[in-house]
């Protein structure tokens, strides 16, 4: 077990290191933060002074080593835009993002999984076709389009809900639905496929032949076996909790991590971008780790396979 954890942790650290290094190099080589933050009209002298103040006049590898040295002692750096610590800037946005992504995750799971199971159990029926048609529509309509349509209907026409911002308890409703619909659609399709595959297995027929009630067959044999691909997708969705709402946050002017990431990337505000990437990578790696453990719980054969 210790070896299992050590291997996973080592792999996770390597992944995080690669993500951060790749982002550092790409961001450094694709735009000069001084020119992006101060604007192209700024005097050359101002741009040179800004570069010097933030060490941007050093070779990229020197900047990288300096960055790694600081990260190693827990210093994630400061925003070049306003000088505030990057960690504090990111951390103050996290609650806003989770306010959207956690309820959206609940919608995805609570709507998508039952819908997929129900459609599979009624394969070929009008309910199955209706669920799948809705699922296809749900994940093919881009979230910014769905968001704008919801705003037009519920905010502009009906006036029931705010069109954006974070001012009232109703404010998260539309962004949460926008986020939830696509994910629920994906889960419904995956769950249906997994269930159909399992329902076609010989052991399901055997259980039925032995006279096990259909509900018990589904609950005791089909659902656990179909859960593995579904858990994988849910794990991915959990990993995206912090940075999975970039577009929706922009459409609904929601002050979360996603919007901060967009601004930071467009200004090449490297400390902020790297901090967000570190956080996202850590979340994703942790989610993967938990999913790996869940595999073992769901299917004992996988425990011994390790």
């Amino acid at each position, binding site marked *: 077990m210790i070896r299992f954890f050590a291997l996973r942790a080592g792999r996770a650290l390597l992944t995080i290191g690669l993500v951060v290094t790749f982002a550092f190099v790409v961001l450094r080589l*694709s*735009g*000069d933060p*001084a*020119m*992006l*933050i*101060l*604007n*192209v*009209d*700024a*005097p*050359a*002298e*101002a*741009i040179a*002074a*800004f570069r*010097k*103040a933030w060490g941007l006049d050093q070779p990229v590898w020197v900047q990288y080593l300096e960055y790694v040295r600081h990260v190693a002692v827990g210093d994630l750096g400061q*925003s070049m*835009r*306003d*000088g*505030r610590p990057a960690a504090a800037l990111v951390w103050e946005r996290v609650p806003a993002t989770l306010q959207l992504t956690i309820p959206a995750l609940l919608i995805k799971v609570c709507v998508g999984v039952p819908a997929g199971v129900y459609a599979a159990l009624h394969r070929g029926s009008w309910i199955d076709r209706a669920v799948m048609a809705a699922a296809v529509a749900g994940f093919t309509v881009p979230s*910014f389009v769905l968001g*704008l349509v919801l*705003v*037009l209907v519920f*905010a*502009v026409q009906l*006036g029931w809900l*705010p*069109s*954006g*911002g974070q001012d009232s308890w109703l404010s998260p409703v539309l962004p949460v639905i926008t986020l939830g619909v696509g994910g629920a659609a994906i889960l419904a399709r995956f769950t249906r496929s997994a269930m159909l595959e399992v329902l076609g297995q010989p052991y399901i027929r055997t259980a039925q032949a032995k006279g096990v009630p259909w509900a018990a067959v589904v609950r005791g044999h089909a659902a656990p076996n179909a859960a593995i691909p579904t858990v994988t997708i849910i794990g991915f969705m959990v990993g995206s909790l912090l940075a999975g709402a970039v577009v929706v946050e*922009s*459409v*609904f*002017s929601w*002050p979360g991590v996603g*919007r*901060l990431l*967009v*601004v930071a990337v*467009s*200004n*090449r505000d490297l400390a902020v971008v790297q901090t967000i990437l570190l956080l996202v990578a850590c979340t994703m790696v942790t989610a993967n780790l938990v999913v790996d453990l869940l595999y073992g719980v769901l299917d004992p054969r996988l425990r011994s396979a390790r």
Partner: protein
Amino acid sequence: MVEIGRRAALSGLGVAAAALPRVAIGQPARPTLTVAVQKIANTGTLDPLREQSSNASERYFGLIAETVIGRDQQRDLRRVPALATAWRRVDARTVELDLRPDVAMHDGRTMTADDLVWCFGPRLFGGDTPADAQAVGRRYWPSLERVEVVSGGGGGPRTVRFVNRTPDLTMEGRLAAGGSQVFSAAAHQAAGWAAAARKPIGTGPYKVAGWRPDVELMLEAHDGYWGGRPPFAAVRVLEVPEAAARADGLRSGLYGMASDIGPDQIQDIERDRRLVVLGGPVPNHRIVVFDSKHPQLKDPRVRLAMAHAIDGQAIVDGLWAGRTVVPAGLQWDFYGPMKVEGWTVPRFDPARARTLLADAGYKGAPIPYRIRNNYYTAENATAQVLVEMWKQVGINAEIEMKENWSQVLDTSRPRAARDWSNSATFDDPVSSIVNQHGPNGAQQTNGEWTNAEMNRLSPLLEGGEDAGERKRVFARMLEICEREDPAYLVLNQNASFTAVRRDLGWRASPSFFLDLSPKGFAPA
């Protein structure tokens, strides 16, 4: 002895009677206005020496801090009294100003001459101001020597003199421009630059109550404002990046005002009779800049042909709903006597363009044209129209979409033409043609273009003492930059549109500024 007649006495009583109830029962409650903007600040600060984007901070910055000489934001941007009630020329190096008495600052202090001495001394050029902001200060005031406090009096010193090291007829214009705002010296020195840049203490009709960068700026009424009681108890400036979301928020009643409205949104918004879209041309021109080192653009005739190939009016009519204009070159009406009358952009003349190309021996080789993804209003559509217009005369321009300015200016691959816009920060051509295209302007420091005569003329425009001679120099610069050795071609004057609730009775300024002071609601 002053005599008061019966009519004067009665009218005086009437005025007093009208005023009394307000004093006695207090002012009526005021609403809070929510304004949706595309961007609050690019730099994460509210300091005009750091935050210089014309289409972000200029929208509201005048609500927080003011200059000694103002601009008439309700008419033609001409100079008007602001924190100074009057000013006069002492000589070519010196401007003298009478400061307005009893100007309350946001920290409760009364503005003094010492605030100006600090603002135009250590704040611009030293103290704890970062080096990059000082460099911007030196661009705004390249030769300012000192600010002198001239006279005393009952209410303290009220007259100050701005003394330049060299002659400069643009000093009054510079005093009315960004970077010359007056802040509380005591408050800023106590807070330090970084903190003051997040919460500047000025004299404007609204003071900063809170700021979450990239999210919202909370302003509250400064009731001691010298220009009258602000019409809103608070103004909440919200950052709403998506244009459609700003319009939807306005229609749903979430916002009272939405700036940065695209010309293509106007008709749709105005279908709602409660709303109106106001605004029009602002002191900013959309231009295409040339890199004269590119093999295809070395010959100035090719660059001039690119200008003659463009039907600017068609772009204005088609993409701007006719709500802006093709300007008279890189100049603006508010230049006043310095505007070169009769000057125009090269006329739309495809035949002349073809002749120029033939004379230059251009054979249709590709000319890369770099743009950003709708960084400017209707930028992508404009670029596509330009490429088609150029194609009509045989110019093979190829659009290269870039993500940011570093990529636009990158020299590792051939660059030839790019999009840009030029603002006039004050009412003199030095503010644009010299600052942007002169020897220290971005186009030359980026290595895109240079011209020996232009560089020889620039100091004459900056330091010339004879107004007539300066105007002749400017006219010659226009000839060089727009005809003989084109540095750029002017497309159209940019326009700024703001959608607003009709019942607010607001009037738009002929600039980016959203004037929410009492003047912005005064009858025309």
